[in-house]
C-alpha cells in the first residue's frame, strides 16, 4: 500500500514511518473517539448505579443509626408497638422472618406454574394461542397492587378459607398447617397466594423468553436421538434455561419481598412471634407492610426504628441476589454460554 503511494522515487527511510502512522492515526482517532464516548457512557451508567446503591445504603445506615444505638427503654417509648424491655433485634427479627416466609412461599407457589406456562407458550401452544396467552400474562403485571390487595381481601380470603380449614384438619401435623386456623382467612397463606399471582407475570415472561432462546442446534440434537417433546425440554431446554430461570425467580422474589399494599390490606398482623403457622391469625407481619402501617404516625426515634427495619429489608434483598448469582456461577462450565 505505502509503496504505491510514490512509485517514482525510491522509498527513503522515514517515509513509511511518517505516512502510514499518520493515516492510521486519522482513522484511529474517529474510531477511538466513538470508543471513548461509548466507554464513558457505559462507565458512567455503571458508576451511577453503584453510586445510587451506595447512597441508599448510606441513607439507611445514617438514619437507622440512632435506633441501632438507642437503649431498649428509649425504643419502647418512641415506638408504641415495641413493649418494655425489647431490643431492636427481638423486634425486627420476626418481621424479617415473616417477610422471608411470605416471599418464599409465594415463590414456591409461583415457580412451577410460571415455568409451566412459560414452557407451554414456548414449546407446546400453537403460535396464535401462544401470543394470546403471552398478552394475558403480561396484563396480570399491569394490575396495580392495591387492586390485588382488594381482591385478596374481598374475594380470595373468603374463597380460600374452607380450603385452609381442610388443610388444618387433615394436614395439621405438618408444621406450616399447624395451629388454630383463622376464621377470617386473612392469614399469611392467603398473602402468599396473592403474592404468587403478583409475581407470576414477571417470572413467566422471563422464563418464556429464556426457553425461546434455546438454540435450535441443541433441541435438534435431542430430537435426532429420539427424544419426545418433554424429553427435549428436559435435556435441552431446561438445562440451557437454568440461569435465566434463576434470574426470573430472583426478580419475582425481589418483588414479593418488597410488596407492601397487598400484604398490608390482607394480613391481620402479629408482632414479636416467630411462627410457621401460616393458617393462624395474628402470627406474622412483613417489613414493608409494617413500615407502611406505622410510618404516618412515627416521629423522632420512631422514624429511625422504621428505617432500621428498612435497612434489614435492603440487606435481605441484596443477600438473596448475591446467593442467586453464586448458585448460577457455580456451574458456569456447564452453562450454555460457551
Amino acid at each position, binding site marked *: 500500500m505505502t509503496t504505491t503511494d510514490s512509485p517514482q522515487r525510491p522509498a527513503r527511510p522515514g517515509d513509511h514511518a511518517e505516512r502510514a502512522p499518520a493515516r492510521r492515526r486519522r482513522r484511529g482517532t474517529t474510531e477511538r473517539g466513538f470508543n471513548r464516548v461509548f466507554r464513558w457512557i457505559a462507565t458512567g451508567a455503571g458508576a451511577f448505579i453503584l453510586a445510587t446503591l451506595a447512597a441508599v445504603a448510606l441513607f439507611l445506615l445514617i438514619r437507622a443509626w440512632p435506633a441501632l444505638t438507642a437503649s431498649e427503654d428509649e425504643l419502647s417509648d418512641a415506638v408504641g408497638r415495641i413493649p418494655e424491655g425489647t431490643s431492636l433485634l427481638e423486634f425486627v427479627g420476626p418481621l424479617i422472618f415473616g417477610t422471608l416466609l411470605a416471599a418464599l412461599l409465594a415463590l414456591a407457589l409461583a415457580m412451577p406454574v410460571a415455568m409451566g406456562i412459560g414452557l407451554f407458550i414456548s414449546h407446546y401452544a400453537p403460535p396464535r394461542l401462544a401470543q394470546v396467552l403471552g398478552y394475558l400474562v403480561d396484563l396480570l403485571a399491569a394490575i396495580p397492587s392495591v387492586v390485588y390487595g382488594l381482591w385478596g381481601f374481598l374475594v380470595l380470603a373468603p374463597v380460600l378459607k374452607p380450603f385452609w380449614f381442610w388443610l388444618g384438619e387433615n394436614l395439621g401435623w405438618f408444621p406450616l398447617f399447624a395451629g388454630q386456623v383463622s376464621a377470617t382467612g386473612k392469614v399469611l397463606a392467603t398473602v402468599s397466594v396473592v403474592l404468587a399471582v403478583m409475581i407470576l407475570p414477571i417470572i413467566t415472561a422471563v422464563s418464556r423468553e429464556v426457553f425461546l432462546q434455546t438454540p435450535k442446534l441443541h433441541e435438534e440434537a435431542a430430537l435426532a*436421538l429420539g427424544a419426545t417433546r418433554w424429553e427435549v425440554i428436559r435435556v435441552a431446554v431446561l438445562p440451557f434455561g437454568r440461569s435465566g430461570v434463576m434470574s426470573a425467580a430472583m426478580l419475582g422474589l425481589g418483588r414479593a419481598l418488597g410488596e407492601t399494599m397487598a400484604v398490608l390490606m390482607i394480613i391481620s398482623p402479629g408482632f414479636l412471634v416467630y411462627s410457621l403457622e401460616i393458617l393462624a391469625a395474628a402470627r406474622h407481619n412483613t417489613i414493608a407492610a409494617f413500615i407502611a402501617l406505622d410510618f404516618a404516625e412515627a416521629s423522632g426515634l420512631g422514624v429511625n426504628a422504621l428505617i432500621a427495619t428498612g435497612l434489614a429489608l435492603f440487606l435481605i434483598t441484596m443477600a438473596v441476589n448475591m446467593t442467586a448469582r453464586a448458585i448460577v456461577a457455580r456451574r458456569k462450565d456447564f452453562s450454555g454460554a460457551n
Partner: protein
Amino acid sequence: MAQRIDVNDMNIYYGDFLAVEGVSMTIDPKSVTAFIGPSGCGKTTFLRTLNRMHEVTPGARVEGSVELEGVDLYGDDIDPVAVRRNIGMVFQRPNPFPTMSIRDNVLAGVKLNNRKMSKPDQDDLVESSLRGANLWNEVKDRLEKPGSGLSGGQQQRLCIARTIAVKPQVVLMDEPCSALDPISTLAIEDLIQELKKDFTIVIVTHNMQQAARVSDRTAFFNIAGTGKPGRLIEMNDTATIFSSPAVKATEDYVSGRFG
C-alpha cells in the same frame, strides 16, 4: 444393525414452497452414500426427511414414502420418535449438550430410550462408543468434564459417539466435516470407513475429494434456478459418477466447472 432404505417419489415442502421434487432412490445396507450438489439444491432438506426431522420445522411436510426394510416411515401408525431412534443424525455444526459432561453426552440417547442401565453397563457403553468414534484415548481421563470444552473436531466425534451409542440402523451426516480442520476431517473420514461395517451411512458433502474417498455410491442433486425445486439428477457408483457420469451437469459439477 444396518438396513436398506427405499425412497419413492418424494416431494418435500416448506409450507407452499416445493423445495425438493420427485426423488426416488435406494440406499444399500452397510454402504456409504454421498449426496453432492450445489448450495440450496435440497441435500439437507432431503436428508432430514429420511429420519422425519424435516417435519420439526413449522409448516414443513412431505409427499411420497421412505421405506426402511419395507416399512414406510411415513405410515399412519409410525411414531416419528421411534424413527429417529432407529436413524441417527450428525449435524453440520457439532452440537454436544453444553450442560452435560462428556460421559452424559454419550449416554444421553440411551437414557432417553431405556432408562434403567447398570453403572458397569453404562461404563462399557461409554467406552465402546467413544472408541467407535476414535475419541476414547483423547478423553478417557476427563469424562466428567463438559463436552463443550473439547475442540471442534473432538466435539463432532463426541456427537458421532452419542449417535452410535443408541445403536441405530442408519447414520445420517450433514456436512459433518465442514467446520473442521483437515486433520480432524481425515479422522472422521477414517471413522466413516469403520462405521460402515455396522451401519448404513448417508453423508452430505461439498467436498468432491471427500465424496470420492469415503463413499460407495454418490447421488448428485441439482436445482434449475432460484425458487425452483431441487431434483435428484443422477445416482450411481461413486467411481462411475466421478469418471463417466451419464448427465452433462454431473460431469460439470464434479469436474468443478460450476457449483
